């Protein structure tokens, strides 16, 4: 088994890189987009709030696989052809944005109302209150679910192989196609995904401990 794994590793390198690139793109874009939309969902005018609520509920109500195919096959029909890689990133990012919106909403709303009032009372503006008072406290509650979400994004990125994007999963299947020996490769694949996610959850625990001093 070790022999097959050692044989396969060089072939997986490119796929591994693609998996990482897809994951990083999805995580970074969804973080920025999700935080902005999440804040708008809480503080925005009614029309904006409704729009974001509909977006989030719709996206989260669709299986991620359906969303992926919808973007890849559906958008070209609507005159917006995207290549496989872009479609994959767009679909996964949309899905992740909807999740981040909910994490942000939950985290910000967990900060007691009196905190915002105290921040108002000393004369802080809206952005000042978010930056100095609300976000630092919401961050601690945002972090654990978000890091879980990052791990989900890494695992979920394997779906892009269904669009023909050569990520880690696709590369594994390519090697199996040549060697007809599936088990060692799937074990290797599982090991690689677990390593990434273990590193993430260890980071999460570390950061959570760092911020655990914040109590009400």
């Amino acid at each position, binding site marked *: 088994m070790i022999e097959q794994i050692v044989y396969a590793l060089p072939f997986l390198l490119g796929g591994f890189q693609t998996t990482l690139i897809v994951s990083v793109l999805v995580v970074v874009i969804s973080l920025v987009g999700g935080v902005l939309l999440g804040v708008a969902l809480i503080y925005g005018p009614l029309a904006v709030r409704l729009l974001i609520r509909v977006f989030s509920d719709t996206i989260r109500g669709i299986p991620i696989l359906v969303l992926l195919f919808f973007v890849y096959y559906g958008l070209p029909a609507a005159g917006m052809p995207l290549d496989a890689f872009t479609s994959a990133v767009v679909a996964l990012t949309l899905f992740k944005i909807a999740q981040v919106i909910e994490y942000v909403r939950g985290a910000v709303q967990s900060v007691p109302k009196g905190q915002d009032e*105290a921040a108002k009372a000393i004369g802080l503006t809206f952005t000042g209150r978010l930056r100095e008072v609300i976000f630092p406290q919401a961050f601690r509650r945002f972090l654990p679910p978000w890091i879980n979400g990052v791990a989900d994004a890494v695992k979920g990125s394997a779906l892009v192989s269904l669009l023909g994007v050569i990520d880690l999963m696709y590369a594994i299947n390519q090697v199996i196609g040549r060697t007809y020996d599936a088990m060692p490769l799937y074990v290797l694949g599982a090991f690689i995904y677990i390593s990434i996610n273990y590193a993430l959850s260890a980071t999460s625990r570390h950061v959570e401990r760092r911020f655990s001093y914040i109590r009400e």
Partner: protein
Amino acid sequence: MINKEMGATVSGPPLLSISQLIKDFGETRVLRGIDLEVARGEVVTVIGPSGSGKTTLLRCVNFLESYEGGSIQIDGREVGFLDLATRKRRGERDLAAMRAETGMVFQSFNLFPHLSAGKNVMLGLRKVRGKSTEEARRIAAHWLDRVGLGHKFDSLPSELSGGQQQRVGIARAVAMEPKILLLDEITSSLDPELVGEVLAVVTSLAEEGMTMLMVTHEIAFARDASQRIVFMDEGVIAASGPPRELLAQSAENPRLDSFLSRFRASHF
């Protein structure tokens, strides 16, 4: 406790001027035409049964609550609205600047739990008053010292007792040099043995001429520390006057009498 005759002199046009203030919570009218003026250096206490609207009144003064009718002016400037006729609100920055002119101390302290006592006081000085870190630190240290907590500069709120937290809350408010200090039942969530240390701080601020509008259930404290007591009942000011005069009025005012009788039974 201070003698009110020895307190700061009260003179000039009113610092705070509330007229015909009306506030609704949905269908319920909680403030039904409040008229109240507070002079520079004056200490005014609002008493009344729960649900009488006294905390809401205080929260309208720094526009934590908006209001449906009437006017609130501090130093001649309307607090929340640019134009009373159209009820056009001040913009965010403008409103924040207005709020910086009033200080507020809350019943539940509302210290920022992620910041040390010192940084709680420094935040407004740096981000609102634009002071340098060194100067903000110096001012914060001065005020923490004043409330007897100079040695707790680096302590987190979770490491402080309720009384200590509330004294930090007072330091945070007065360090901004507000024109008026709003105190909202600041001893109501404290253990009885911690009430004294907080009231002592308020008394010393009153002696220095800080203008204050406060809501409290500490009737004896209100009597000793304020120039005027306002009794609110069901959204209106039902009686007001200098402490001893007001407390003496209770014979003619059954609502005031029934409110005060609860305190007589336990405290007098």
